[in-house]
């Protein structure tokens, strides 16, 4: 989860993020960040998340849970 937060922070150009942070609150959470996140989840976690999947994601923790759920599927 720590490593996951580091990756998200990197994409968002934030010093750090924690699991309760709402992605939509970041000015940088735009379509390019969404694209980068999808690519990162594939490369680092081996999961394929679509832009549609991300519509229901609010917080960093939601994204983490989605990633874990996809991994098991």
């Amino acid at each position: 989860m720590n490593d996951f937060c580091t990756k998200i922070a990197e994409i968002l150009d934030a010093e750090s993020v924690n699991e309760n942070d709402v992605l939509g609150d970041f000015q940088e959470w735009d379509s390019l960040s969404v694209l980068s996140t999808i690519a990162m989840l594939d490369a680092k976690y081996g999961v394929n998340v679509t832009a549609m999947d991300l519509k229901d994601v609010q917080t960093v923790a939601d994204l983490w849970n989605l990633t874990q759920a996809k991994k098991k599927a």
Partner: protein
Amino acid sequence: MSQQPPYTLVTGASSGIGRAIAERLVRSRRLILHGRDNGRLEETRSACARPESHLLWTHDFRQVAQVAPALTGLLIGQGMAVDGFVHCAGAVHVLPARSARLEAVLESLNVNYVAAQQIIATLLKKRVNPGRLRSVVVISSIWSQFGARGHSLYCASKAALDGMVRALAVELAPDVRVNSVLPGAVRTPMAEAALADPRIVEGLRQNYPLGLGQPADVAAAVEFLMSEDARWITGQQFVVDGGRTVNMSHK
């Protein structure tokens, strides 16, 4: 020691396009199959005709300083010659420019370009592979010619590869032909997941006059460029993209 028939080296042979290239070239060549993961490489070898006549080379191209020594050791150790080289290993980092950390930049360059240059240098060495290399094909991308958001690392590394191809085509003629294949979007396991998104499917349908490609479509172009039928073709960027890059239709 070089009396046995020469091999063709295919890097990135455990992935979609690389594996398709291996399965295609195996009809006429003995292969050295390169990949990062030995297990997946074994799968590629099993899928090939006459699996026992092909060799595996496991190496992580992020360790780029070790590429030339490792390949040198392999060829001299086994007394093998290599007359063909296909570079299909690739790394993709999609990142906003503001997030392009050095590690990601170097990984893109090392895997996509530097490793290929080091392999070619090795295959041209007199004491390793004396005068045996004949044809090189690198897998570039239509993105080497154009831009896409988040793709500055990928576009730059593939453009480096294409620049190398043109220069080497001139430098190594007439003994060695060097070409690149520029695929568009191809159906690989990773792309299949994106195709679950109807908006992406609709976008691709509009952009690709011939629809999405298959790994075998790329492999067929590689086989042609590697063959004697392409004996008067060198230094070229061979676009295999279902018409994507010539499509100027209004959306």
